[in-house]
């Protein structure tokens, strides 16, 4: 069989199979992302940590999900998931400019690029991202809400509102990582 140099040959049906797998992955990730953001904005928005007062805080599951996808699937997937998750998060919680897509995209993309080159693909490595991503989101929220919160002392607001959200984000990172890892394992083509 003569094969021309410079052309990539694949077995018959491989392209269709790859496309099917990509569609499965996309649908699964989209649904998971929606479920996680749905939980973040409803059931988990009532979580209270006594140490930080009894004010409710919610973990940034959308952000964690973007970073987990980037970390486990690659920066492209992480970036696109970040855009999507940011859009959803902003649609439910944001106001003014929609800046969450930008933040989530950057986090998802960077977790993919940095995770691939610098860190091992395991949970402790992902925890580093969750700490950084959660912190970044808190800083973002501080800067975004600084205009609104004139009456309340910033220290109180940060301690009772932002720090619990950050702690919760880090605490939930293992669960989100496990979810995405489990999906990756389930969708992995069985040879």
């Amino acid at each position, binding site marked *: 069989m003569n094969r021309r140099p410079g052309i990539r040959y694949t077995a018959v049906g491989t392209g269709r199979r790859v496309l099917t797998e990509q569609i499965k992955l996309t649908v699964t990730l989209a649904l998971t992302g*929606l*479920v996680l*953001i*749905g*939980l*973040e*904005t*409803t*059931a*988990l*928005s*009532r979580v209270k940590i006594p140490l930080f007062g009894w004010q409710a805080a919610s973990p940034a599951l959308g952000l964690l999900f973007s970073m987990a996808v980037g970390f486990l699937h690659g*920066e*492209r997937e992480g*970036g*696109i998931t970040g*855009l999507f998750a*940011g*859009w*959803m998060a*902003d*649609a*439910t919680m*944001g*106001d*003014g*400019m*929609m*800046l969450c*897509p*930008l933040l989530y*995209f*950057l986090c998802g*993309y960077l977790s993919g690029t940095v995770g691939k080159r610098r860190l091992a693909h395991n949970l402790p490595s992902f925890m580093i991202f969750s700490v950084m991503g959660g912190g970044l989101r808190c800083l973002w929220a501080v800067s975004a809400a600084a205009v609104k919160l004139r009456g309340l002392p910033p220290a109180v607001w940060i301690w009772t509102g932002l720090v619990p959200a950050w702690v919760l984000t880090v605490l939930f990172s293992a669960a989100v990582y496990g979810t995405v890892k489990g999906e990756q394992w389930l969708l992995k083509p069985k040879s």
Partner: protein
Amino acid sequence: MSRIKQRFFIACLGLALAVALFTGVFAVMGWGSLLRDAGSAVIYPFQWIGSKIGNGISGFFSYLADLDDLQAELESVRAENQALKNQLIDAEILADENAWLYHYLSIKEEHGDYALCAASVISSSSASGEGGDFATELTLNRGSSSGVETGMPVITPSGLVGVVVEVSLHHCRVMTLLDTSVSVGAVTTRATENGLCEGDYSVLHMGQAILKNLPEEADVQVGDIVVTSGRGSVYPYGIPIGRVTEVTANAFVRTTEAAVEPFTDFSELTQVVILTDYTHYVDGYENTQGDRP
């Protein structure tokens, strides 16, 4: 490959910035964000599900938090339930007593000349039969301390029960109509045929008695009502005994006999009345001879 990734990064970054910028500009201009509304529409079903889950979890934890209170409340409700059950039992007993007293009063109203003494059945001897156990002997909770004497008739609102045969200070023994040793002067209400109503082994198993010593040509039919005749000075006139169920002729002694099914249910006797005194009538006429025992 690297260039492609750079393009991808720049494109996505540009898209994100454009979205932020345009949304911000539209928000400043007072127009709602189309993107935000679209995102809300997409996420809404998942938020609805999340809200339901949250409510479930919240309810579960509040249930756990209130478990001690619920336990205490359960104990309290159980105690209250037991108390109410006891009250219900008491109420049922009172209702029975009330019904009995109502009948007792009806006897008093119907027979103004009767002196009555209500009594409860303490124990009974019975004969087993087709319709159950029929009492032939009763022990009542009244004795000479209540003015009870031997020979006093015992009745219920339904009819005749028997006669007191033995009296102690606080108890008395009664032979019922079904016992073979009891003999009651009786008369049919339709044709006033006189006879003696006695217990008999041949009909005891059916809870019935026999009306004997009727003339051979006596006009007795099935369905006739039998009452006390007042003869014999033990039972007052007119106490219902029962209804004739069968009529037979006794060829040997040339008399007629009738099986009588008593009005009183001898299988379920719990309350009776002892007639301690009454005006004595014979066949409906007052007996001025004063031969009341």
